[in-house]
């Protein structure tokens, strides 16, 4: 593969309850901002990939909808979906499109409007669509319960504690205070997190990412165009793997094998090793997700995600590898389709030295880790300010 591909622009809405806006307005805002950041006109965009689960409103055909309302027609517009990894899949699809040589400038957008679903039963069903409908959801296993099982298994096998889970949440909330686009910009103490209302033991309310609305978009271009830009962020590696949809069919539930496969593929493609990664956005839809991610991505030894977090290794201040400087899914918010793109945007800001008070020093390589369902999809992306 000789064609190099970079992200040349980014834009996102604030992640919050957007009572007065729907999918079309949110996506249009994010894409418009991204095109402006990339100094690219609408006419120059050649294809659009939109990541969105869409189940929260019933609107399908979202690719066309977004192209329509953003003024991008008649370019090809495709909606992609992979549970909670929609956004990352949109980014990968755009990457592949440019890599193929058929397109030079492609927009990847993630968007989700979740707050039209106000009945908790409907919300649980919609969220559960990322797991196995027949063998998990209809059997009574809600999505938080799936991750609660993984958390319990991890705690039983490795001695991970509830306090260590809470530390993930506390750290991410603290980081989000400095992220103007974050849903929740307030800190929580470990005590508050431990005392929060139980959702599905051992996961409490503050272990679970929130329901948010929002959109995020990036402009992806080939090297010729990227080199004319000041700060292109190169997509050095992209790994995508699948696994069993149902948790019970996996050989292990204390880690996400698909993430390990995707990570390996990304590292190999990029010829980058885990210890060269300076900053990472890890999929913390539930706090246990960040701990397992640290292990699956090869940042810490197996089972040591909790210990590493407790030792402060993932903090911005004095951390070996700052994780979720944006606030993560927990505090930045989790409009499902938009999350994977928002992760990439945070890494971009870090690489461009644009992360304000969240800035990590000397960042050259960043990683995003996005999981669909309980691990049936994993997409790992390596980004760098250096082309090779």
């Amino acid at each position, binding site marked *: 593969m000789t064609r190099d591909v970079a992200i040349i622009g980014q834009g996102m809405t604030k992640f919050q*309850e957007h*009572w*007065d806006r729907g999918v079309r307005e949110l996506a249009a805002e994010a894409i418009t901002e991204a095109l402006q950041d990339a100094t690219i006109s609408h006419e120059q965009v050649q294809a659009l990939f939109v990541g969105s689960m869409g189940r929260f409103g019933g609107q399908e055909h979202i690719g066309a909808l977004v192209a329509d309302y953003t003024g991008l027609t008649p370019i090809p517009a495709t909606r992609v979906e992979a549970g909670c990894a929609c956004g990352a899949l949109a980014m990968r699809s755009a990457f592949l499109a440019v890599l193929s040589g058929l397109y030079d400038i492609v927009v990847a957008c993630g968007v989700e409007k979740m*707050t039209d679903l*106000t*009945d*908790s039963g409907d919300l649980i069903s919609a969220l559960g669509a990322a797991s196995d409908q027949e063998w998990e959801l209809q059997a009574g296993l809600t999505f938080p319960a799936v991750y609660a099982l993984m958390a319990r298994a991890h705690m039983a096998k490795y001695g991970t504690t509830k306090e260590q889970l809470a530390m993930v949440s506390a750290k991410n909330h603290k980081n989000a205070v400095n992220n103007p686009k974050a849903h929740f910009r307030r800190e929580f103490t470990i005590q508050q997190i431990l005392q929060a*209302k139980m959702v599905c033991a051992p996961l409490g309310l503050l272990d679970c990412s929130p329901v948010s609305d929002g959109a995020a978009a990036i402009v992806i271009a080939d090297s010729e165009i990227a080199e004319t830009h000041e700060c292109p962020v190169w997509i050095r590696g992209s790994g995508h793997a699948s696994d069993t949809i149902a948790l019970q069919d996996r050989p292990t539930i204390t880690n996400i094998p698909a993430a390990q496969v995707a990570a390996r593929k990304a590292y190999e493609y990029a010829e980058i090793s885990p210890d060269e990664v300076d900053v990472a956005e890890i999929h913390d839809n539930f706090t246990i997700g960040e701990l397992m991610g640290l292990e699956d991505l090869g940042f810490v030894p197996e089972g040591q995600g909790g210990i590493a977090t407790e030792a402060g290794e993932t903090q911005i201040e004095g951390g070996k590898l700052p994780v979720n400087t944006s606030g993560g899914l927990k505090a930045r918010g989790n409009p499902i389709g938009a999350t994977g793109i928002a992760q990439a945007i945070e890494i971009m800001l870090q690489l461009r030295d644009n992360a304000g008070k969240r800035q990590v020093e000397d960042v050259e390589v960043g990683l995003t880790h996005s999981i669909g369902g309980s691990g049936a999809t994993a997409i790992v992306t390596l980004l760098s300010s250096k082309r090779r």
Partner: protein
Amino acid sequence: MQVGIVGYGVYIPKFRIKVHEIARVWNEDGETMAKGLGVSEVSVPDLDEDTTTIAVEAARNAIKQSGIDPRKIGALYVGSESHPYAVNPTASTVAEAISAGPGDFTCADLEFACKAGTAGIQMCMGMVAAGQIEYGVAIGSDCAQGRPGDALEYSASAGACALILGQKGIIAEIEGTYSYSTDTPDFFRREGENFPSHGSRFTGKPAYFRHVLNGATGLMTKLGLTVEDFDYACFHSPNGKFPIIAANTLKIPFEKVEPSLVVRAIGNTYSASAMLSMARLLDICEPDQRILMVAYGSGAGSDAFSLKTTDLLLEKRDQVPKVDDYVNNKVYIDYAIYAKHRGKILDMT
């Protein structure tokens, strides 16, 4: 033309169920629920009480306090979301019970979620000011229902407040009113349904707060008043938190709102909520003080009023039981008795 409140009366049924007790049934943590809602217990009507009977109690108190001849009442309106009949007026039953009418007398039932009662105030204001009637009665009365296990079950309660409006013997002048109304479906109940549906978090910022805050600021602009001109404020209280947040946002000091928070002890009395809160303020305030009242009704709209008390308030208000008298007259029941009173027990035979 000065129009004002000539007399007011309230009624709150004596039964109470604690939020902790409701929580026990649904396997929730009572402490968390009570703290989160800012409500500790809610009032429950007796087996033979309903919106009509409690409206009558409140109206009787108002008549007695005002000292007027009920035959001089020209109009009577009952606002509620729990009228006992879909078709058959509550108002005419209440009217007969207090000897209003039958001649040269109009009455009707009103609906607009929790601001049906205050809508009646606005109607009576106009009729009195126009000289069409001598006295008008506006009543907010509800025996609210919450779906079993739903969040609203913890706050829905029962209560009534009746205001007599006129031009003679005013104890609180109504300086003006301002309403803010939009099509916002935050809370609704279809014909035939037992329990309402609601939009959860949608009932907050885009519903309650949008309309209450616009109502308050609109009123102040209309009357050339600022927050500092008011001695007290009261707001529709779906729980013990929203009115406090509304006051905070408007920069009204907590001390000016706190005495109105009857909701903490009896829950959300729906159409009576804002009016009962105001009644409590009238129970304790001094003459020549200004009160802001903002009612809110889902669907959605707000009615805001500015009231100025007179010396007559002190002469009249001790004649009938006050809000606190009803609040403190209570008997606790458990969920089983509560369910029986509220008709929530199914006949399975």
